[in-house]
């Protein structure tokens, strides 16, 4: 069967993206419908764990042994259906979110290591991070999420800056998955700093740690370009970072977006730039719809931030022209 399908289809690289998207949607719908059909015919609701494991195993085999674009999509979709079945099955048996999250964390890490598909690896990483969040919530220590975010950001930066990695596909997957995970975590738990408790203090520390990471990356870039912090440009960059702290106080995800914008520009990576800009826009939308500050406060924060950024630009361009340098 696999052989026949492989003959009728070609590799993902030679297929336009819109055809792949359509095939992906079709593969997902088919996989879900076939699973529902199997449940209905065989009545295996009680053996969801076994069904899930068999589905994941079969899809792993399919993906490893096929080069076809359609089978790749089908294997991916089937694996996702298998994972959902497994999670629901474990939940039915143990009736504990902690057990489900812990087992799924192990499964996702395993899939990240062995499943030979980049997008699958990215989703496994994101799901693993979400599983950690669920564990923290279940243990009622969700404030430790701030530390999880710092670790995820720090590790993402390390992986982006690291030149050689033994597994290129894994490195690429983690490079994209960790920024996405951090955004998801922050948006799932969108809160401001207007209360002063232990959790808020940890969030403050997270904010400062992220400022530190941005400063570190900006320092790296300036070092590469031989830009001294004492120059007009150095001052302009430092001022910009400080100004952007104003809206970030209410929405920490803005800082994370800024960090990844810098990394994306540094490594000329359009996909990461797109993710970071999307993260920035969604975070700003959270700011607009935040009910914790009034429209007037938002208006003042936005106007001051915008005005200051335009002043920095004007001042820098003025001095740049005066001292006749390119940058």
């Amino acid at each position, binding site marked *: 069967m696999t052989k026949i399908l492989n003959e009728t289809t070609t590799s993902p690289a030679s297929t336009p993206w819109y*055809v792949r998207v359509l095939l992906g949607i079709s*593969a997902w719908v088919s996989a879900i419908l076939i699973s529902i*059909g199997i449940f*209905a015919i065989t009545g295996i609701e009680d053996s969801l764990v076994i069904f899930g494991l068999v589905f994941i195993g079969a899809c792993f085999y399919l993906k490893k042994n096929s080069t076809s674009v359609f089978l790749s999509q089908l294997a991916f979709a089937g694996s996702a259906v298998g994972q959902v079945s497994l999670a629901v099955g474990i939940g039915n048996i143990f009736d504990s979110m902690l057990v489900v999250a812990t087992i799924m964390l192990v499964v996702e890490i395993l899939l990240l290591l062995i499943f030979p598909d980049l997008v699958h690896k990215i989703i496994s990483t994101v799901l693993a991070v979400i599983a950690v969040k669920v564990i923290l919530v279940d243990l009622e220590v969700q404030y430790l999420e701030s530390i999880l975010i710092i670790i995820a950001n720090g590790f993402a930066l390390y992986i982006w800056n690291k030149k050689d990695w033994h597994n290129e596909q894994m490195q690429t997957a983690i490079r994209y998955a960790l920024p996405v995970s951090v955004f998801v975590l922050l948006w799932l738990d969108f809160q401001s700093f207007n209360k002063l408790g232990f959790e808020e203090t940890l969030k403050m520390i997270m904010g400062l740690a992220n400022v530190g990471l941005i400063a570190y990356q900006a320092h790296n870039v300036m070092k590469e*370009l031989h830009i001294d912090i004492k120059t007009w440009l150095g001052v302009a960059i430092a001022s910009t970072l400080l100004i*952007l702290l104003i809206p970030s106080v209410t929405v920490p995800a803005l800082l994370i977006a800024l960090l990844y914008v810098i990394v994306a520009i540094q490594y000329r990576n359009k996909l990461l730039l797109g993710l970071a800009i999307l993260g920035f826009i969604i975070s700003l939308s959270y700011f607009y719809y935040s009910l914790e500050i009034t429209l007037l406060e938002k208006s003042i924060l*936005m106007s001051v*931030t915008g005005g200051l*950024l*335009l002043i920095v630009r004007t001042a820098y361009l003025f001095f740049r022209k005066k001292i006749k340098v390119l940058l």
Partner: protein
Amino acid sequence: MSHTTLNTIPATTERQRWFNFLNYGWLILGTSHLLVGIFFFFAYNWNDLGDITKFIIVQSLLIIGLIAVTILNLKTLSGKILLMATALVIGALFALFGQVYQSPADSYTLFLTWAVAILGWVILSNFAALWLFWLGLLNLTAMLYWEQFVSNIYSSQQSPLYFTIVCCLNLLAFGVWTYLRKNKHFAHEEWAYTIFAIVPIGWLTYTAIDIITDSQPAEYNWWYWLFYIIVSGLIWFYFRVKEFNLAILTVVATSVNICITAWYLHTLFDRFSFGTGWAIIIGIMLLAQSMITLKILQEVSQRQKNVQK
């Protein structure tokens, strides 16, 4: 402040790239934050503002926009984007007019008036995004006109006829766009062209689903299926033979697949006692359809490559 480091460094592409990023970042973030801040300020005080003040604010934005467009020139991208923003302000002005004077008119008239008012700018701009926006306004008008006016007068059996007319208008727009693109070196944006193709095919598919799910009498249907086959066939033929475009061929193939799926799903639900076990059959059908579609698109693409060689 030390200037020496900067002065002694030679200009490089990398530095220019970072400068462009900083320059645009400052400009885009600064302007957008400032504008949103100003909008929020007015929104905060909106209910306390008098009607005249509200009109002065919106009309001032319109005048400022037009002055800026004149200064920037419609040949620049910034000028075109600004004209599009000013076209949006026109809509805000009409909406404000309706709000202040509590007009009893149906809401489709707002979009129709808006489309008519900005038509001159749309033609002058030669900007694909503004053309698409204008087409969107017309389609919205058509939908609202159906909901608020036509559906109250005529029976639902006449809906295919109405939607077919809307589809024909969109086909006309697509045809004109194709002609201008080919003969007048106009409207080169590929993405806009594909969207222009998706809109009429979308209406074609929507009407087909409407006919399938409404189970209307055969006398109302045969002419539509004939129309569907002729239009899809012509689009397929044109973009397969005359001007090869795989994206548009994929849209046509998707439309046919959606109609087939809608037909057998409706038949299953309508004529048989539908159990969850059927899901496995539907899943397999979808797999088969996807493989056949992919095979056809690949063959078409391969033949085109062979012709080009």
